[in-house]
């Protein structure tokens, strides 16, 4: 596989600026301003295209950025902001600069936009919104409409995920002027946006998985017990081989979803990718921690910056079982003899 230019640029930027120290500080509550500025200036936030952009032509670039971000446990709402900027831009709304939050009407949250005379009434709530407290605006996605909402104050107490990333509950009861609301662009209703979110999390996870495996392989080569590196023992080799298989499957699932979305079949592919990568995350975290032994369970070691994110991200934008249920119903509706023809086209 050839590495894209975007991928290389992102990798270099994150390696320089998203150091374990910066990640630790962010988890303690310090917004990583220098990193955010660099991400903004590199143009990553418009990786999917901003104002006036077309469908999903540059999905691969966005996924490359997020995969690199996952590799470095980047503690920023890059996925959310890319998605929010793309959606608002396509709807003809001009989002503010800075980090954005996303509220999607769907399986996790209920948000509703109702017309009241010349204005709109937004009602509902979004739970566990990434960096809700830092967001300069909230982009709301329903099946029919997109709305741009001013920053909202999160409910107290503010929350966080297992990786110490801000996750804030917000109530969305606001009257909006007509100029803040637009029709949902073709192919960008809430269900598509939610799926893109799932694919973005899968991309972040694919990156974090690569790095977690690399850490474990390196550690197995360095750590000596019984007179040799533990990586020389078959018991360790076989476990790391299983982890490598899962990491490879995760990478292929994400890359294939990008290709499928380009061919106009995002729904199936994003669901499959999130499910497959989420499953890989559980297995790989188990193995890389076992290989690292006690040092991997310390706060001092960097491994947890990746594994705590993997445990968090696999639960966001749909857990494996939720996507499995949806895919299963879809396949059941094809009829037993329709399963293969359906798959062979994908």
């Amino acid at each position: 596989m050839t590495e894209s230019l975007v991928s290389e640029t992102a990798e270099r930027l994150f390696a320089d600026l998203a150091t374990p120290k910066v990640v630790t500080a962010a988890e303690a509550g310090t917004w990583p301003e220098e990193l955010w500025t660099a991400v903004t200036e590199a143009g990553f936030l418009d990786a999917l295209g901003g104002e006036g952009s077309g469908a999903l032509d540059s999905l691969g670039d966005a996924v490359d950025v997020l995969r690199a971000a996952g590799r470095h446990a980047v503690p920023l709402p890059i996925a959310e902001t890319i998605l929010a900027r793309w959606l608002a831009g396509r709807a003809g709304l001009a989002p503010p600069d800075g980090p954005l939050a996303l509220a999607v009407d769907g399986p996790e949250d209920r948000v509703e936009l109702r017309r009241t005379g010349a204005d709109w009434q937004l009602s509902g709530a979004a739970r566990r919104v990434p960096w809700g407290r830092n967001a300069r605006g909230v982009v709301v996605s329903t099946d029919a409409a997109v709305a741009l909402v001013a920053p909202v104050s999160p409910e107290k107490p503010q929350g966080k995920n297992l990786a110490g990333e801000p996750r804030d509950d917000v109530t969305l009861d606001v009257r909006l002027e007509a100029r803040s609301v637009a029709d949902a662009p073709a192919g960008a209703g809430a269900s598509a946006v939610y799926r893109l979110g799932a694919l973005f999390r899968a991309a972040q996870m694919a990156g974090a998985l690569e790095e977690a495996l690399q850490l474990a392989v390196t550690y197995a080569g360095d750590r000596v017990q019984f007179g040799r590196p533990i990586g020389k023992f078959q018991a360790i080799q076989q476990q790391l081989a299983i982890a490598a298989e899962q990491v490879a499957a995760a990478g292929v699932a994400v890359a294939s979803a990008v290709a499928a979305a380009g061919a106009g079949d995002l729904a199936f592919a994003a669901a499959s990718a999130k499910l497959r990568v989420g499953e890989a995350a559980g297995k790989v975290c188990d193995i890389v921690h076992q290989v690292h032994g006690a040092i991997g369970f310390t706060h001092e070691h960097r491994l947890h910056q990746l594994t705590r994110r993997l445990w968090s991200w696999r639960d966001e934008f749909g857990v494996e079982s939720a996507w499995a249920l949806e895919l299963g119903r879809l396949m059941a509706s094809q009829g037993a003899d329709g399963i293969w023809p359906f798959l062979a086209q994908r």
Partner: protein
Amino acid sequence: MLERYVATEEMLVAGAPVAAHWIADRQSGPLLLRFGTEEQRLEFLPRIASGECYFCIGMSEPDSGSDLASIRTRAEKVEGGFRLNGRKVWTSHAHRSDYAITICRTSPADGDRHAGLSQFIVDLKAKGVTIRPIPNLAGNLDFNEVTFDDVFLPENRLVGKEGAGWQQVTSELAFERSGPERFVSTFRLLVEFARRIGANPDPRAAEALGRFTAHLWTLRRMSLSIAGMLQAGEMPNLEAALVKDLGNAFEREIPELVRLLAPRGSRGGGNDRFEETLAEAVLHAPSFTLRGGTREILRGIIARGLGLR
């Protein structure tokens, strides 16, 4: 390569009887294309392509399974060719095949145990070849013991270079390990499971079907990308090992899960497609992770790829 992929995959998932011709088409043909003489290509390839000539592979021996380099079957130089002696086991479809691509020692392993091995096209109807089927646990006759007792091999049946057998065999592995047959062995059971649970399955059954679908989609994308690499002349042995091990685990998991989730009706009586397909899958599952490289050997290859050995 990709054309073959499409055709064979469709046959496999339809449950078509493909075994007899499988090895010649997947492996022996490409081997002769790569290492064979012009004479060998002209003699065998048209017959393989038209489905008139079946091959099997003589690799494992009674004392050599995963440790292939330890084989003892040997070919000695004689006037006009070689004389072959030894014994192969677990040779699938030898009793139905015309030829066996057989790996044997042509010179002793002095220091380098991978040296001194050679591949031959052995005519299974030749004098001195004895084929004895070995019934498997399902009661089927698929694999065999093949004994070579002073079998004469004409010089022109040597494949590639004398002594280069190990390198040549290794180059076949990506063909052998990356195809759809490594993850669709129990696909028919998944289809019968879907038929049994119907259009409105209960949530647990639906979840299992959905999860298997996502796994199958991913495996297929991995396998197709390897087919693309093979087409481009690359030798993706590590990637192939990954796909085979993941694929085998997938095809073994299908019977283990659907037996718990499908409504189970008749037991023992005939005419129940689900139960029949399930029984077939359960009985054959142990072979998936043995044939074509055990999972332990595959994981060893992957560990080497990771730089651990």
